[in-house]
């Protein structure tokens, strides 16, 4: 289908839906690099005006990447729920934006909507919304998931404790783990990125985490973020795998570049469920995504990076994950150049994920070649706290010495919980109080000289 909009005698032509979406997207370096960006400020707004009038029904007829070529497109269209869509099938993209902002769109209504929405509809409406609107609507969503604790309840903010070490040294990791726990971090997951994908290393770290969790009865889950094939190998050998992790993208070709397919994700989920390790729920998958991954893999099919990212959420939601987070600033300035672009993208990703029914967290982060610093991350942290983000990362001093980038620190989580009155997951909060780490008000208590958790590392 063809789209156009006329501004002062000049008619902007958009030859198809993916071009219209790309031209309507707020400026970011990745779309410039891909050559899909609007050529002027005026063209961008013209595209947004044209996009506002597109009926949502069009998104079900005009696939951005052909059905025959891409299993993510097939997933999106095959699983689309007509009954849930019926409430909004007469809407344009602009109507959807206005409705989302209205009082009629309350938490319950937003919880009924996801099966009727495709990621492309969500990406489209996102492009028409300002940052405050992305926050206001996301805040109304509530997506709750469970494994050994309950994540995503309103008024709660969880953290992934990320105790990475450049050589995967067990004692180095344990030192950061103790530090994090004593700062009240780790209710979303204790999750380690490893320098190697060696199954032996992954297994020994999984066992170490499992022993610590058992010994101190910590109501949380652990994960070593290895490739899904490594997890499958370990699952078959009954290693203590709580959650299966995988990086995913929004096109089949992107996923191929990650070495995964939808069938593999399903197989991994079934194998993880079979271990039956969850105590309060069975959300067993953990996914990471990020704008730019499709372009980086030369797998974007001319689709803008924010829309590709939203399509990754359609992949994620199929497998009922415990946790999903975008690694927004990690991929580098050729995709998101500066603090402004990173902040915008993070709010988009959080909004789109929540609207599609995902338990969305965020790796609030940047690399040293991006035009960003801690002040930008403080801004984003505060905004996402207000938006009701399910979880953030907890990295010692915000400095990940293995992945060489800056994320949020244990201190950052304390800050945002304090200024916004947010609390950890209820089961974990109770444990923190029992351990004399925090008081009933959630304030960190003065640490004991020899807290029993320091015994994790005998020295």
């Amino acid at each position: 289908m063809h789209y156009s909009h006329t501004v002062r005698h000049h008619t902007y032509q958009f030859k198809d839906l993916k071009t219209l979406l790309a031209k309507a997207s707020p400026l970011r370096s990745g779309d410039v690099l891909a050559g899909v960006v609007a050529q002027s400020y005026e063209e961008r707004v013209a595209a947004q005006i044209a996009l506002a009038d597109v009926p949502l029904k069009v998104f079900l007829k005009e696939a951005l990447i052909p059905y025959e070529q891409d299993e993510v497109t097939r997933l999106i269209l095959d699983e689309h729920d007509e009954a849930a869509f019926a409430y909004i099938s007469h809407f344009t993209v602009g109507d959807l934006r206005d409705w989302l902002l209205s009082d009629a769109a309350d938490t319950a209504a937003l919880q009924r909507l996801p099966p009727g929405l495709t990621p492309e509809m969500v990406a489209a409406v996102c492009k028409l919304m300002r940052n405050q609107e992305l926050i206001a609507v996301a805040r109304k969503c509530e997506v709750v998931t469970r494994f050994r604790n309950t994540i995503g309840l309103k008024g709660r903010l969880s953290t992934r404790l990320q105790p990475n070490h450049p050589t995967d040294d067990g004692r180095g990791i344990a030192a950061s783990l103790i530090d994090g726990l004593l700062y009240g971090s780790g209710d979303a997951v204790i999750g380690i990125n490893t320098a190697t994908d060696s199954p032996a290393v992954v297994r020994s770290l999984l066992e170490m985490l499992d022993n610590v969790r058992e010994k101190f009865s910590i109501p949380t889950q652990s994960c070593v973020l290895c490739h899904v094939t490594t997890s499958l190998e370990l699952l078959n050998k009954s290693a203590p795998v709580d959650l299966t992790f995988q990086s995913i993208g929004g096109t089949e070709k992107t996923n191929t570049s990650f070495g995964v397919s939808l069938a593999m994700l399903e197989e991994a989920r079934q194998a993880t469920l079979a271990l039956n390790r969850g105590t309060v729920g069975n959300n067993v998958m953990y996914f990471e995504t990020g704008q730019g991954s499709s372009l980086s893999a030369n797998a974007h099919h001319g689709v803008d990076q924010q829309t590709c990212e939203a399509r990754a959420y359609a992949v994620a939601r199929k497998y009922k994950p415990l946790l999903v987070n975008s690694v927004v600033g990690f991929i580098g300035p050729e995709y998101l150049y500066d603090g402004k672009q990173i902040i915008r993208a993070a709010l988009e990703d959080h909004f789109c994920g929540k609207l599609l029914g995902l338990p969305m967290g965020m790796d609030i982060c940047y690399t040293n070649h991006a035009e960003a610093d801690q002040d930008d991350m403080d801004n984003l942290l505060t905004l996402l706290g207000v938006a009701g983000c399910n979880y953030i990362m907890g990295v010692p001093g915000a400095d990940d010495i293995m992945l060489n980038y800056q994320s949020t620190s244990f201190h950052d989580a304390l800050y945002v919980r304090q200024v916004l009155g947010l609390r950890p997951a209820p089961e974990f909060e109770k444990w923190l109080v029992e351990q004399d780490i925090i008081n009933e008000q959630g304030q960190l208590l003065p640490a004991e000289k020899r807290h029993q958790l320091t015994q994790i590392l005998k020295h």
Partner: protein
Amino acid sequence: MDKLEVSKATADPWDSLKAFTAARIALGRAGTSVPLKASLAFKMAHAHARDAVFSSLNLDLLLEELEQFQLPVHLLHSLATDRQEYLQRPDLGRRLHSASAALLSEEGQTFADVAIVLADGLSATAVNTHAVPLLQILLPALQKAGFKVASLTVVEQARVAVADEIGELLGAKLSLVFIGERPGLSSPDSLGAYFTYAPKLGTTDEGRNCISNIRPEGLPYAFAAEKCLYLIKEALRRKLTGVALKDEMNLLES
């Protein structure tokens, strides 16, 4: 009103755990914030990393120091005009400017075994600091092993893949680029080395081998040079680089 008491940051009594990791643990706190000393130390580390990203090759000194190797040296530039463009357009950093390409075409095919390229990458500081001391060990070792080394090239605003075009224009069997890596907070001057057999435009990263973190606090010069020599020998013997060429140097020794 009485004078307010000076508020001291709360220390963490698990300070001894710092022995196990370079991570920023046991920082203590001021309220919920990081104590000022740790906060400023972080800022300083980030300042070093940012300065490294925006550093330039010290061409006068570099060219003077490279004279000792008695090889022709060409000064080249990529298609990226400045740092801002370089950071947003990696595609431009991978290609030579036409004037630079012409300069190498003039020299013609050298039939050398190895073309060594020095590229600023994301930290010219790394090249300024480590390239010459590393070459002082590597080049004599290459000559002793009987390898023919092509003219040295120094490239500004360059990405790894720029060495594909250079290697191809010089007709070298293998290209070896030393390039400034993306600075980490604790490593603003890490040098990386990328090896590509039969370099030509359009080579993808699966076709390369890499040695990372070359600097005295990481992989020291002598060890890095030894690893380079090993990979060059193996690549030329087996006529390939990339995933099929594993670094088994340590396996062979043990």
